[in-house]
């Protein structure tokens, strides 16, 4: 098996790559790239779980890796691609509140403060990788938030939520109880799948706000239809 020291280095490299993938998600506009980046990010987490297994020897980590691989690397990206094809949109054109450049700058600021806080608190504890992991995981959650509020299209918002979820997953891999994590993971993936299926079924081809007005039957009766 792999040498634990090597595994630890590998984990650090993987962590950096995960954050890099999130940064790329913030800046990219085309949907195909976004989906691929998300799949890649999830795959990195799979590798991370396997790396951790090399150190901890906890079989639950392998189960988590398997679930993540199946749901986040295969099924969700597959459905996302399907949705995109149906929507016939290739790029995100409008942004709300911040441009991608502003968004990535904001992410850098957030990263700085998060790292400053958690390295201060956690540096005294264990092997040193923990403070990095916690900072990066929380940073991933924040980056997911940035994606959600800077993009208008529902499909990109979904990717934002998924990135946040990856952050939570990353955090829990190191900190939380593993058996509980598996249950949460499956639940969250199910929710995401339902949202995506809803997207396909109802054909939300733009933002949530506009979809609301479509749902409002009363408005249609009264002739106040907005679309």
């Amino acid at each position: 098996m792999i040498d634990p020291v090597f595994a630890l280095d590998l984990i650090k490299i993987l962590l950096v790559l995960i954050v890099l993938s999130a940064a790329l998600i913030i800046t990219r506009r085309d949907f195909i790239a976004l989906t691929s980046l998300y799949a890649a990010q999830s795959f990195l987490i799979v590798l991370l779980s396997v790396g951790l297994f090399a150190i901890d020897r906890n079989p639950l980590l392998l189960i988590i890796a398997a679930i993540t691989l199946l749901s986040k690397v295969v099924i969700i990206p597959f459905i996302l691609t399907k949705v995109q094809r149906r929507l016939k949109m290739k790029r995100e054109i409008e942004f709300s509140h911040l441009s991608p450049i502003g968004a990535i700058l904001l992410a850098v600021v957030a990263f700085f403060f998060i790292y400053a806080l958690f390295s201060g608190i956690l540096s005294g504890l264990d092997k040193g990788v923990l403070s990095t992991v916690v900072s990066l995981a929380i940073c991933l959650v924040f980056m997911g938030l940035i994606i959600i509020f800077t993009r208008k299209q529902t499909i990109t918002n979904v990717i934002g939520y998924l990135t946040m979820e990856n952050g939570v997953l990353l955090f829990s891999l190191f900190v939380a109880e593993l058996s509980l994590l598996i249950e949460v993971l499956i639940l969250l993936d199910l929710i995401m799948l339902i949202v995506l299926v809803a997207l396909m079924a109802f054909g939300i081809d733009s933002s949530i706000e506009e979809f609301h007005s479509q749902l409002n039957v009363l408005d249609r009766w009264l002739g106040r239809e907005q679309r």
Partner: protein
Amino acid sequence: MIATLAYLALGLLLLPALAPLLAFLKDGRAGRKAFLTAIGIAALLLTALAAYVLYTGTQLLLPLYDLAPGLGLTLLVDRLSAFFILIIAVVAFAVAIYSAGYVEHLKSPVRKNLLIALMSIFVLSMVLVISAKGMVGFLFSWELMSLASFLLVNFEYEKKGTRKAGLYYLAMTQLSTVFLIAATGVIYAQTGSFDLQRVAFSSPFWASLAFLFAFLGFGIKAGIVPFHKWLPYAHPAAPSNISALMSGLMIKVAIYGLVRFLLTVLPPGPVWWGILLLTAGTVSAILGVIYALKEHDLKRLLAYHSIENIGIIVMGLGLFEIFSAAGLHAVALLALGGALFHTLNHALFKSLLFLTSGSVLNATKTMNIERMGGLSARMPGTAALFLIGAVSISALPPFNGFVSELMLFEAFFQAYLLASPYLQMLLVIAFSVFALTSALAAACFVKAYGVVFLGVPRSKEAKEAKEAPRSMLAGPAVLAALCIVLGLFSFQLFAIAGFSFPVPDLLVVGLLLLAVYALTAFALRNVGKRRTCETWSCGYPSAGSVAEYTASGFSEPIIRIFDAIFLPKLTVEREYHDGQKALFKRGTAEMRLMRFFEEYLYDPVARAVEKAAAFVARLQDVDLDLYVAYIFVSALLLIIVARFLI
């Protein structure tokens, strides 16, 4: 044994909370009587318990319930709590007897049951506030008391104005809780404990901050001017037995809080604490009585007198602080004794007055005293009881009100002992205002008693009024008897409690007065020519109620003197047929007294709150993206703040 007694009393007080279940019975009258009896027995048990603690000076520790580890609801009854429990128990006992008759006047059985349930919860919550060992239990019971009283104020919610009174009350009472939580926060930050014990503050600033928060919190609840506006709305809106509990007891619970903080929680304070209390008390006393003078709604008149009397009590506390700061402990104790005794006395005579005015309301169906008159012939028992209350509140010897006010006057007389001439001047001014207050209170009750009970009836309802049922006389009679006993035997009672205050032995004074009254009555009956005519008809043969002295007429000269305070406001609106304003079409003119505090304090604050609310509403009415951005910004700010804190 004593602890079992206490638990039993609390259990009995909680029992009537089940009263709404009586709705399942065909006739719940017997059940209601049983529940009211439970309240009465609980009150008697509490009286015994309080008397025991007061007499022996023992402390009683009663663990009740743990809300969470470290946040226990534990009761601790010491002499101060016991004194206030005694007040609550005595008044609750009288009100329970009165309610047996009063409740049956309500129309729906559901209401009758509900009133008893809420009443018992209200009384229980007050007992819990007063015996709470720590601030957590105190605030918990305080909120219970506020909510119970809010529901009781709203009890007749379908009546015009009641819901407004209820909301007004709720807003003010919650504001008071906010300040109390702030005071708790300061104390916790200094000690790390929620216990109501002496706090060693790290600097005088924190002590003064805790005092200010406590003063505001308790001041709002006690109805100190300018936080008093809720009181004349809320107290009259509630059913009369509840008005008696609210005016007689609830505002005293706030006084308890203030005394508890001053005596056992806060360290001896700087002199400005006393000055603040004295000033607030003086302003409350004089404004309370002046507002009462122009009031023609009997219950509202009584509510304004509550503000006046709370003012007198707070004046006593102010004197206590001022003399304590000057090291004059004997005088300080006299002032504190006067304030506490007045608290007890006011609870007794104000409950008595509210209960008897409730009987009047039931008999005449109106609270407007201009529509009453001649009730002493129709309701002699109620009239006699009201008279005892009126004489007591007017501080006439040998009744209890006289003794407590005399003690405060005596404390004022010692102003010359103070070193600072400014303080002396302040005390002399406050003293003069206090004297004026007492005189005006007497004038006001001459008006109230004279217009309500004497003369001839001014309305059909007053003419047809009938005496209240026996229980509605027995309840107030207990209080009236206590008013007399506490007055006549005040000297002896103080001696039993171990205090030697310089008060005259009123038993002797009382006997002398009785002899003088008897002689005068005898002389009037037997010497010279007599002509009998109606009161207020100035010796002329009766010309009916229209020729009578009205309440407005009686108070008009006094109101004229205090014109500058009432500030009458004239608004005239005219409409014209033409643009040149030559041909008058119609117009309205309205003259009303300016609501100073509402127009210059409450309304601006309300407008500011509304503006803030509009700003928040603008923040709220946005799209989903911005909501997520809010979360992002708040979380990031939290992290930044945490970075600098840790």
